[in-house]
């Protein structure tokens, strides 16, 4: 036992790879699976790791092909330590999402160099499954799912291959495909009925949520226009009934009170505790599926009149989640489009809504004072300002010229007269405050596009918008959209129609060819379906679904119970189908057993070790008068049973002869 083992490691002259427990095609399956599992990560890996992994995979393939020797262990161990050190150097840590994936890639590649036993192959395969799963940390798009399905197929085929190495490659694919196909019903049941738990179970690594786009907690010239160039989806809305007209679709987000001359921020305003407004008319009911943006804002139509779970509202009418939105989140809301927002107007709040840094924008302040002096009321001031924006020759642009002085509002209002919504809303609020009208900036999204395929409204980052609210005493906080005043088409038709055609970013050019539109709508509806039912399937969806299927209290115990019974039932059905009893045995054998039984009754039982011919010769000696029949029956049976092919006519003949046989 020991000798060949020593030989394996000691001999330098061997030409083949006797330590490979896998035949070449099966090793290729495994290498292919690992390559496919690595592929989605390859761009994110540190360059040297990517190069190293590719090199090892290629070299291993070459070595398998040409029978090169695998490196010896004394070489592998320091190599592994060195590479892990390198991973630490690249990521500054060995933990967390990115470093973890890098480590997994490295370990898999190195494990390929050290496959000496069947156990190594199994360990490698399981590690590769892990790597395949880790692709979902970064993307859960349908394409990623397809790649991963391919990986699973290859790896499962490799598992089949090591258990029946003598069979052809095609048989392994067929078996693996059949197993996966039969596993799908169980997957579906587990997916819908496995009790969902609200994660996370432990602290997430810091790098888990980088790179999410969305509104920011401050507004300075340029950041909304930059966001507007993104075609990414901010959220999707499903209305109960018809969607309100586009002009009324103001999706409220962060509210900014504090201005330092350049940037608007929320500020630390001591807010009144109440969230209240007077409503009239019929509420709009809808559900929002919010893409993760790693902040706490929940967007709703002005003004939201209900509160989603795990959320709270502020006096300035913001809906905030208790935890950052790090996964696609779905919530139901109802809003009144006609309202009087009189909350959040304490003395402190109104003071905060009038605060301005004194030293900036003298021309703006002068203009505001002149309005104040000649106007009869606050409402009159507001109207004059709106009229100013409408008639002032202002242009709307995605690429506003950069401010050259500290008086950026002066520059915008009097010199350049070109800007984006953040310029308009910011300048408007500065004017109002200078004229003594309490005002604040509200950001969010404006508009949305109905997808005719599934009826969902899509709101994109390009719909990001900023507007203003002024306090008009008894009427309350009133929305004023200076951008709409200057560029009415912005709110009626959307951004792409409002900006000059030569500067509309690629993402915003909605190709108008009808078939392209149809294609896009279909694709987005499909992807929404995917988001709603696959990616967005969470505790809430699970409960809703199970309630619809008639489960009165879908708590986790009941869900687990239903999972147990459904799984049990399906496994039972599957096994009944797989193990359906063979009702008809081999007809030749049936005849032969009948023949043996007849002889046994006459005291000529067959010994267990006797083959048909030996038995027949013995019986023929005992019954010489029937020797002919006995030998013929045995010959026929042996030929039918152990011969290369069966033949229905000869089986029939055998049965006939046995029937006639009377010992």
């Amino acid at each position: 036992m020991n000798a060949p083992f020593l030989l394996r490691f000691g001999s330098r002259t061997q030409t083949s790879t006797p330590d490979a427990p896998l035949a070449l095609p099966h090793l290729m399956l495994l290498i292919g699976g690992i390559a496919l599992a690595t592929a989605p990560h390859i761009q994110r890996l540190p360059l040297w790791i990517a190069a190293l992994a590719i090199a090892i995979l290629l070299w291993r393939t070459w070595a398998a092909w040409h029978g090169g020797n695998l490196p010896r262990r004394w070489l592998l161990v320091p190599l592994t330590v060195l590479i892990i050190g390198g991973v630490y150097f690249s990521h500054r840590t060995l933990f967390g999402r990115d470093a973890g994936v890098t480590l997994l890639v490295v370990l898999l590649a190195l494990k390929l160099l050290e496959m000496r036993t069947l156990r190594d192959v199994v360990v490698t395969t399981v590690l590769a499954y892990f790597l395949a799963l880790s692709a979902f940390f970064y993307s859960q798009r349908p394409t990623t799912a397809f790649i991963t399905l391919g990986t699973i197929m290859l790896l499962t085929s490799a598992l089949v291959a090591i258990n029946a190495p003598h069979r052809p490659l095609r048989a392994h694919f067929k078996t693996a495909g059949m197993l996966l196909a039969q596993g799908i019903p169980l997957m579906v049941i587990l997916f819908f009925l496995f009790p969902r738990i609200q994660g996370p179970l432990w602290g997430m690594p810091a790098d888990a949520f980088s790179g999410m786009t969305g509104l920011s907690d401050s507004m300075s010239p340029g950041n909304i226009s930059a966001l507007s160039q993104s075609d990414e989806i901010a959220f999707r809305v499903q209305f109960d009934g018809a969607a309100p007209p586009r002009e009324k679709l103001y999706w409220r987000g962060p509210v900014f009170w504090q201005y330092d001359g350049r940037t608007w921020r929320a500020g630390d305003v001591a807010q009144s505790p109440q969230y209240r407004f007077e409503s009239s008319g019929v509420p709009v009911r809808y559900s929002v599926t919010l893409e993760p943006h790693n902040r706490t804002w929940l967007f709703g139509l002005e003004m939201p009149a209900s509160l989603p779970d795990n959320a709270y509202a502020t006096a300035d009418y913001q809906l905030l989640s208790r935890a950052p939105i790090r996964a696609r989140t779905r919530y139901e809301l109802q809003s009144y489009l006609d309202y009087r927002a009189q909350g959040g107007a304490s003395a402190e709040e109104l003071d905060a809504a009038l605060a301005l840094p004194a030293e900036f924008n003298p021309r703006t302040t002068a203009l505001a004072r002149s309005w104040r002096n000649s106007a009869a009321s606050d409402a009159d001031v507001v109207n004059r300002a709106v009229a100013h924006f409408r008639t002032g020759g202002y242009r709307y642009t995605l690429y506003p010229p950069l401010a050259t002085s500290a008086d950026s509002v002066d520059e915008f209002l009097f010199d350049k007269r070109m800007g984006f919504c953040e310029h308009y809303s910011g300048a408007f609020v500065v004017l109002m405050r200078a004229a003594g009208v309490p005002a604040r900036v509200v950001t969010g999204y404006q508009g949305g596009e109905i997808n005719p395929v599934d009826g969902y409204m899509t709101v994109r980052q390009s719909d990001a918008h900023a507007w203003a609210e002024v306090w008009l005493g008894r009427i309350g906080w009133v929305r004023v959209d200076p951008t709409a005043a200057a560029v009415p088409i912005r709110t009626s038709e959307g951004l792409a129609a409002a900006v000059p055609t030569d500067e509309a970013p690629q993402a915003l050019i909605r190709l108008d060819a009808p078939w392209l539109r149809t294609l896009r709508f279909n694709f987005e509806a499909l992807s929404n379906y995917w988001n709603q039912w696959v990616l967005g399937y969470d505790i809430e969806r699970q409960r809703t679904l199970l309630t619809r299927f008639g489960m009165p209290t879908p708590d986790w115990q009941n869900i687990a119970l239903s999972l147990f019974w459904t799984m049990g039932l399906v496994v039972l059905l599957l096994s009944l189908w797989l193990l359906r009893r063979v009702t008809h045995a081999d007809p030749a054998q049936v005849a032969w057993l009948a023949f043996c039984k007849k002889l046994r009754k006459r005291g000529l039982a067959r010994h267990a070790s006797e083959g048909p011919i030996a038995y027949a010769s013995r019986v023929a000696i005992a019954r010489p008068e029937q020797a002919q029949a006995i030998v013929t029956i045995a010959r026929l049976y042996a030929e039918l049973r152990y011969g290369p092919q069966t033949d229905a006519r000869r089986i029939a003949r055998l049965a006939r002869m046995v029937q006639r046989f009377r010992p």
Partner: protein
Amino acid sequence: MLAQLLHRSQLYRFIQLKRGRGTPTAGTVFLTHRRVYIMPTRSGLAFAVSLLLMLVGSINYQLSLGYMMTFLLAGTATVAMLHTYRNLVHLHIDAGKVDDAFAGDSARFHLHLHNPGHYERVAIEVRGGDSAARCDIRPRDSGTTVVAVRSERRGWLALPLLTIRTEYPLGLFRAWSYAHMDVRALIYPRPDDSELPPPEIVPAQGEATSIGQGSDDFYGLRPYQPGDSLRHIAWKAMAHGDVLLTKVFSGHGTAELWLDYDHLPHNMGREARLSRLTRAVLLAAEAGATYGVRLPGRTIEPAAGDAHFDACLRALALHELA
């Protein structure tokens, strides 16, 4: 009542089978669902642990597709368990012919596995004693495996408890069953490698028959020399050693040999004498001589032919045993 319950219980049957108790089954063994057992392998346990880790990761990061992949693998593993079980259950095992052997060699038991199912059986492993053989069986077809069992002494060698097992398709589960077949091989005494000539030849029934120097009758063996006729090479004897031997023929007329236990040197023990006689029988049969065997309490009259040869070896194998 209690005893009946006990006998019906799965565990009881399992222990009985495992210990090789219970009565050996004569004829066909059918692997019913009651006698096929299944357990996860070490790979299966490792796979389960990694599925658990995948699930925890998916919960923590709220990965819907992570859930999906974990559940797909779990479903596939469950299906694989059914397939492993199905790969083994409802298999017929028939004992086929048995190649008898000389003590020290391996007796070969041929086993016919019949697959009555509509699906192929893959990588069925049959273990008995210290040998294992694998085979695939096509739907409604039979396959033959050979279990070689090393013999130690002459006499009957029963086929040890057979373990039939399979881990196909994924190696995550192992299904196995036991078959205790009523088959035995006859183990002949090991022919010794003594110097020629064979044991003393005693005239039959007082009628002296001397060994002549003719050309037809077998006299003995000598090492092969180039030029010897190929027809005279002792192929059968060669099979038991690795030297080419040439048959030497003698005299005229028919020699009638008596291979007599009592005429062997007295300092030889019983087993040594039986070994010597076995070799003599082999040589005599090789030569086509007419020979008889005389053992204490048993005499086989001189004759020739295969049946006689078998009877002589059988008598030697079972001397003072059966």
